[in-house]
């Protein structure tokens, strides 16, 4: 039994728990009551009930349940995107409850069993989600000890808990197990909910969580138990869900973005068994009984598209477009200091630079997939979306039914790094299923996945520093200008944020958002700002700005941390020495020093001047914060000047995310971030012509190949048990590009200010 349980496994567990009385096929939802509505022989009292209290954040039963056998179920309104989050959550819950780690099973992302804790979002799985689960588990322990005190006739303060058994501190024979106390019944305990949904949801009880010095499970390196089922082909992905009577759907997208179907010849697919067209304004899909037939139908269907004006510039003109585009919204960071404009007037010298970052694709391993079944007015959606509670809301809105009629079940998808195409697939599947009156499984094609997913937005970044006659930095200004990160929102909770809604013509409500560098450089005069520009195509666009792992973090910090290096070089200072002169936060200083020490950094200004020939090497540093987490990275890079090929050979990463829950999972999460960061830096660029995106597969949108794997990623984990844990899912991708850029400069004396550092671009820059 894996400890991460999802819909597909849920039914198997249900059968076990009820002694095989239930016969359900894999993939069918089972009501929670079936699983936990046991033990009705127990007398009801104020703290334990047989009937489940409402699934609301102010109920302890919404987060924690003790099964009849004393094992614990934790119901989590977030989910794991591959970093083993459920292991960490299990550790936090087991720790607070004083039960063995293996006694806890974490159920994730099912709207029938969990409240909306925001889904996978902003690396907050532990920071916010874990915080809530920790408080709920602590409250459950408090209540169970109170129940034991009554049962044993002893004061609660004379009781201890060992492995889920409450016992007298001085007499272990006086005991009551959690299973005896409440097993199979629900907690009927009110929590102090802050009335927030999503990431900010917080509902503590009366209990205080443990002092970190007493931790036995938190902080331990515990492996994931979902790896073996994946390796032995025993675990289902959302792509593997099958329901009786299911047909297969495929979507059709226009060759020219913005075009809509004006004539669809259904007779062109009449030779394909069960093939049908679903057309609603710009929404166009086909279904067929068999998957291969649906694929053929989508290819064979004759469609006449409207004569849309090509909406895009050539991608070569992208940055000029951004420079010239009107600013839709400007925001200045509220930590502004001094008077930047006046300070620049007094400068002896001004250092300026501009950096460019392209659109990038999620390019998930598999195109998005969703299955939707509508039965007696009730909708079930199996989705790989990292925000299943919002999928529930989005489907309800697009089908015009109450949210309570929609059950969204998260099942591991083919990769997820933010607002990917998964949310679009769920909406498409719902509309197809309603139209054809049968359960529909829809999966996109590769060109749709890479071509039409919401994109990490393209941007330019202008930085300037004012230097006085003595060589001191007296002012610093940094401004990003780019497409919004929320042309479509972080989830599919509203029809206007999905391709389906946009193709069907709903009113648009785009948002404006970008960001500023997250660091603690102190300068007397400092201003950080961002500006957003309108999208190139306002609806159903393959270039919708959206969240991609560490939304806008890589682009902003590529620029800001490259620029810090440029200033250091201009002042002939070692890049770390320069940073340490200005960085003020003690934890920031600690990660920079830790990375430098581990990498055996030799203090000297960049660039180095001791290399000749075509193969040269360099080292670079970059650092950043992210919502409380700090990361410093030293990159060591080899460059072949004749080919322009970069080999990002070695990384040294110092990482401080406060309290570490699972150092094992943390290291793997960091490695993945570094490798994906190298990929984004060296290779990844969405290209387009006037009509559409032209990077639509792995040949046109290459990612880092195994032959380009770094030789080493040394990770230094700085643990602060006394500081509340912050995130680790994204922070370490943030400084990767700048660390590489700074290493290239160190090796060559050439500053590359546009990502990706593809061989052609590097060769050109070096010539």
């Amino acid at each position, binding site marked *: 039994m894996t400890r991460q349980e999802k819909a597909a496994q849920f039914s198997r567990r249900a059968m076990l728990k009820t002694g095989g009385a239930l016969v359900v096929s894999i993939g069918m939802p089972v009501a929670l009551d079936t699983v936990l509505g046991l033990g009705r022989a127990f007398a009801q009292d104020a703290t334990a009930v047989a009937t489940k209290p409402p699934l609301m954040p102010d109920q302890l039963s919404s987060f924690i349940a003790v099964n009849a056998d004393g094992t614990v179920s934790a119901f989590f309104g977030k989910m794991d995107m591959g970093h083993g989050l459920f292991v960490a959550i299990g550790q936090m819950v087991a720790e607070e409850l004083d039960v063995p780690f293996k006694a806890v099973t974490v159920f994730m992302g099912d709207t029938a069993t969990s409240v909306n804790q925001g889904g996978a979002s902003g690396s907050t799985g532990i920071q916010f989600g874990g915080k809530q689960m920790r408080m709920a588990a602590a409250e459950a322990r408090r209540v169970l000890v109170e129940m034991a005190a009554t049962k044993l006739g002893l004061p609660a303060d004379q009781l201890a808990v060992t492995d889920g058994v409450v016992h007298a501190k001085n007499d272990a024979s006086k005991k009551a197990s959690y299973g005896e106390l409440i097993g199979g019944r629900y907690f009927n305990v009110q929590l102090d909910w802050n009335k927030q949904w999503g990431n900010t949801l917080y509902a503590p009880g009366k209990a205080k969580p443990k002092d970190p010095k007493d931790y036995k499970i938190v902080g331990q390196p515990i492996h994931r138990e979902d790896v073996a089922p994946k390796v032995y082909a025993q675990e289902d992905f959302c792509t593997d869900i099958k329901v009786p009577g299911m047909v297969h759907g495929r979507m059709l997208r226009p060759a020219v973005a913005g075009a809509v179907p004006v004539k669809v010849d259904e007779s062109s697919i009449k030779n394909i068994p069960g093939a049908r067209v679903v057309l609603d304004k710009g929404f166009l899909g086909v279904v067929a009984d068999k998957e291969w037939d649906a694929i053929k139908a989508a290819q064979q269907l004759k469609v006449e598209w409207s004569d849309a004006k090509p909406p895009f510039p050539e991608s070569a003109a992208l940055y000029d477009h951004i420079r010239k585009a009107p600013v839709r919204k400007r925001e200045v960071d509220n930590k502004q200091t001094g008077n930047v404009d006046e300070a620049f007037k007094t400068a002896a010298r001004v250092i300026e630079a501009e950096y460019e970052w392209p659109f990038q694709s999620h390019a998930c391993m598999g195109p998005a997939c969703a299955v939707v079944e509508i039965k007696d007015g009730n909708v079930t959606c199996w989705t790989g979306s990292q925000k299943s509670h919002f999928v529930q809301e989005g489907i309800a809105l697009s089908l015009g039914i109450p949210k309570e009629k929609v059950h969204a079940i998260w099942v591991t998808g083919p990769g997820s790094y933010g607002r990917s195409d998964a949310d679009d697939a769920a909406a498409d599947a719902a509309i197809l299923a309603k139209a054809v009156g049968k359960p529909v499984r829809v999966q996109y094609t590769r060109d749709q996945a890479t071509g039409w997913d919401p994109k990490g937005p393209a941007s330019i970044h202008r930085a300037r520093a004012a230097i006085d006659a003595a060589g001191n930095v007296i002012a610093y200004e940094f401004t990003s200008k780019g497409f919004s990160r929320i042309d479509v929102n972080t989830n599919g909770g509203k029809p206007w944020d999905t391709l389906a809604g946009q193709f069907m013509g709903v009113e648009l409500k785009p948002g404006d958002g970008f960001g500023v560098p997250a660091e603690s450089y102190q300068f007397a005069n400092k201003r950080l700002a961002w500006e957003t520009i309108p999208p190139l195509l306002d609806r159903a666009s393959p270039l919708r700005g959206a969240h991609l792992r560490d939304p806008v973090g890589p682009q902003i910090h590529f620029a800001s941390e490259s620029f810090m290096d440029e200033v250091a070089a201009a002042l002939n200072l070692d890049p770390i020495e320069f940073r340490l002169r200005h960085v003020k936060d003690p934890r920031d200083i600690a990660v920079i020093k830790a990375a430098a020490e581990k990498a055996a950094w030799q203090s000297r200004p960049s660039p180095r001047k001791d290399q000749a020939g075509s193969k040269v090497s360099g080292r670079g540093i970059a650092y950043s914060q992210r919502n409380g987490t700090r990361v410093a990275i030293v990159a060591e890079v080899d460059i072949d000047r004749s080919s322009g090929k970069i080999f990002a050979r070695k990384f040294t990463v110092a990482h401080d995310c406060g309290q570490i829950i699972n150092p094992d999972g943390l290291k793997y999460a960091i490695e993945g971030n570094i490798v994906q960061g190298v990929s984004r830096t060296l290779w990844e660029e969405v290209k387009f012509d006037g009509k559409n995106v032209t990077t639509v*597969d*792995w040949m046109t949108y290459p990612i880092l190949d195994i032959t380009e794997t770094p030789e080493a990623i040394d990770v230094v984990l700085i643990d602060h048990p006394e500081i509340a844990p912050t995130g680790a899912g994204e922070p370490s991708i943030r400084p990767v590009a700048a660390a590489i850029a700074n290493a290239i400069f160190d090796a060559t004396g050439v500053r590359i200010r546009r990502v990706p550092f593809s061989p052609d671009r590097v060769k050109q820059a070096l010539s």
Partner: protein
Amino acid sequence: MARINLDVNGKVQTIDADPDMPLLYALRNDLGLNNPHFGCGLAQCGACTVHVDGQAVRSCVTPVSAVGNSKVVTLAGLGTPEKPHPIQKAYVEEQVPQCGYCINGWIMTAASLLNQKKKPSDAEIKDALTGLKCRCGTHMSILRAVKRASAMMG
């Protein structure tokens, strides 16, 4: 449509299928095997990889009619928790996958390599695996696992 015999994971089964249909859909839909996975349909990523007579093959571009009497082995047929292929054991020990959608490509290709050469060099490992995709960036642990499996094979 044609009746086609397929020898998959040691069992011969007959399906009715379009001869041009890629093997991938026969495995996933007609035979109910949830591995391999659809990644691109272009033989560019490896998520659909199976063994055909011991060779790693991209099932998304292999017409089902081209398989003939060859023996097809999928990830599910490569090994079991009780009797794992060394690369599977190493994958678990090294905790390789994140989302895990790509693993058919890496495991089946590495298994094919190791079955032919127990002690490949680092360069030979990378040569064998080049072109496969992993979007989560588990490259470091993939290489660790292949070396670990190689060491296990004695």
